[in-house]
């Protein structure tokens, strides 16, 4: 589902964020990308949904070489990927329902589809009854649930999350991770970048560790550090 061959990324300012990255994430996998701050986790995530292009090497996602995607195909490529960020990125002047239905409007879903699908997804992330709330009225964990709901409402093949629990307390973080796991159990490939060891260690999923832009470890049923 996601493959990288000899990928490196040098930003325009000359910073080498990634070098010689190779991995293959299969359909339905749950993978943690771990590493200290500045290791290149976010850059890796951005390469997956083609926010950034690799400086060299190949990035293949959902059967498409991202470097060869034509501009007009890019939106349709991105519809296969749900994205979740640390800062939630909700629209503050829209309700919970609207923040989620917005994602369906953008892909021009029909009104009846929206009416059916949005409550279903809100139910899944445990936000039933909060449809009319504004993001500012929600806790951080709830806001992240809304952003999760938005990421999966169009049934993407892949969900990528960049530090989804970075702004949350441990207990809430755990809820969000469990939700991601639940999404994964329904067949969606999930990639989570994080530098929080506790979560990684508890879940025992595949761990790809990067340091200074290089993969230092790629381990099934892994933990954050060898030491811990």
């Amino acid at each position, binding site marked *: 589902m996601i493959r990288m061959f000899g990928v490196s990324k040098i930003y325009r300012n000359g910073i080498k964020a990634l070098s010689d990255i190779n991995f293959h994430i299969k359909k339905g996998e749950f993978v943690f990308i771990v590493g200290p701050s500045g290791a290149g986790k976010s850059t890796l995530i951005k390469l997956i*949904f083609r926010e950034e292009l690799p400086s060299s090497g190949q990035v293949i996602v959902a059967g498409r070489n991202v470097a060869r995607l034509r501009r007009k195909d890019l*939106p349709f490529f991105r*519809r296969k990927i749900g994205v979740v960020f640390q800062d939630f990125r909700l*629209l503050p002047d829209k309700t919970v329902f609207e923040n989620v239905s*917005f994602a369906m409007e953008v*892909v*021009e879903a029909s009104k009846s589809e929206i009416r059916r699908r949005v409550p279903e997804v809100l139910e899944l992330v445990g936000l039933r009854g909060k449809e009319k709330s504004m993001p500012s009225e929600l806790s951080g964990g709830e806001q992240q649930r809304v952003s999760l709901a938005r990421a999966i409402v169009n049934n993407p093949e892949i969900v990528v999350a960049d530090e989804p629990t970075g702004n949350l307390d441990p207990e809430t973080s755990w809820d969000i991770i469990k939700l991601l796991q639940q999404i994964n159990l329904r067949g969606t490939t999930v990639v989570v970048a994080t530098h929080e060891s506790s979560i990684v260690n508890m879940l025992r999923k595949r761990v790809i560790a990067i340091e200074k832009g290089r993969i230092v470890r790629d381990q099934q049923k892994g933990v954050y550090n060898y030491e811990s």
Partner: protein
Amino acid sequence: MRVRTFGYFFRQAVVSILRNSLMSFASVSSVAAVLIILGMVLLLGLNVDYIASDIESQVEITAYLADGLDVKQVSEIGQKLIQVKGIKEVKFVSKDEALKEFKKQLGDQGDLLEGIKEDNPLPDFYRIKTINPSDISEVAAELDNIEGIVDIVYGKEVVDKLFKLTGWTRLIGLATITIFAFVSIFIISNTIRLTVFARRKEIGIMKYIGATEWFIRWPFLIEGMLLGLIGALISVSVINISYYYLTKTVAQSLPVIKLIPFDSLLYKITVGFMAIGALLGALGSGISIRRFVKV
């Protein structure tokens, strides 16, 4: 594009216009200004053409006579005129008759001339018809040599003078329009840039949700076109109301001048100006969209 999607775009555009009220106002005003000037130049030009063709169609030469000629001198001039080649008909109009004619032309306002009956400033003249309208210039040149004729006026000459006068007005008008058009495109593009900036977060989210480039662009394009349309609407109202009163006033106080009737212009100008307004708006937002909204 689905109808509902268009509704969504339209709402976005309206919300942005209201939110950016100051810049929206500047955009609308600039478009209105361009179109009002365009309207003035256009109406002036059209009316000059209209009046000119009216005058040109009159294949008459008016030969004004010197003041204080006696009856004999006048009839001598008449004799000479008849002998000029190309002249079909010659008719003497005395200053009293001229005054009566003029009074008739003025219609209701004829009373204005009551006071000058005693001291009539109008000269005597001969009204001359040529056999062939196209010969009128040569015939008129011929008459120039006849003693006792002080001035010769014929349609084509008046028309030439009129065109010379309006030529400059048109040139200045068009230059002003061009400059203002660029200014309004510039203002609109800045307004749209502000909207894009205010909604950059939303645009970012739309991009990674998988919105197509045009789905993101349409609301901004509609916003620009709406600004242009509102500007056009204002200009059309101003032009229509002013022209309505202008034709009414001229018809009452200067019936000699025949302006193009109000009704026959209304429709064309309205439709044309709305189109120009929308175009200016689309150009303005197009510039900003191309630069700032990319997937």
